[in-house]
């Protein structure tokens, strides 16, 4: 059930990427889809009544959540920030060249 809500979030992002005609809106859609994928990984790692995967000095912690998807998501978040910055740089360049964020009005592809 909770996977379905996560999937709905992904579909909202996908619809935004496919349907919108504004570059900033497309970047927003990419960010939302990326959030949904990160959330899916962390959801699949959760354990009922689990504890965070950090050992403590004075007590023994029995049931920890899965640490492997956390590590994957940790790198994916920083990569997402870097790619978002790259997209924004390209969008600002397009705005400088054509004076618009609307992709239907960018017709001539020369230089």
């Amino acid at each position: 059930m909770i996977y379905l809500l996560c999937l709905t979030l992904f579909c909202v992002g996908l619809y935004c990427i496919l349907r919108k005609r504004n570059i900033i809106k497309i970047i927003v859609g990419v960010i939302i889809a990326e959030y949904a994928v990160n959330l899916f990984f962390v959801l699949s790692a959760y354990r009922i009544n689990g504890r965070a995967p950090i050992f403590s000095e004075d007590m023994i912690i029995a049931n920890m959540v899965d640490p492997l998807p956390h590590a994957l998501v940790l790198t994916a978040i920083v990569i997402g920030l870097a790619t978002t910055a790259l997209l924004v740089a390209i969008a600002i360049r397009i705005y400088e060249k054509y004076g618009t964020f609307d992709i239907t009005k960018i017709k001539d592809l020369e230089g």
Partner: protein
Amino acid sequence: MIELYLLLVLMIVGAIIAIEIQDLLSSVIAVGAVGLVLSITFLILKAPDVAITQLVVEILCLMILIRATLKKDLPFSTTGRWFLNTLIALCFIAMFLMLFAQCVPELPRFGHPIMRVARIYLDQGMLKTGAANIVSSVILDFRAFDTLGEATILFTAVIGVLAIVRRIGRKKEDEKEVEGEE
């Protein structure tokens, strides 16, 4: 568990507001709200490392996006072929949903992960690396090649941004235009 559902519904509402609102600055701020709620969700799901990183990265991401949209409120255009575009988008999403429906039976039930690899990390991580934080020992010792690849991607992104931003040649053209007009 009810708070998890509430937070997810809040995120979906925030995302719909972000993609349907007309003003670009409001849209970007709604994305920031979605990111902050996502950070709280990570904290509830017992992932404090990911929560801290998501919170901090969200602030920087929001700054970059606001920097891009500032003082550029443009008329929102809905050009023709409205029906066709929506139909194609919905068809694509339906195809994706069909693929997902085939994957659903294979997923582990929520709250009962398959910990085949992670069990070894949890049992022997403290002995082998000496770090109390298992996530840190995974990303920097067991799976350090992931981190190396991440560093490479970050380096490539920095080079890409600097190459796009750099204006050698173009500046001269524009100055020539100005001079020509004068």
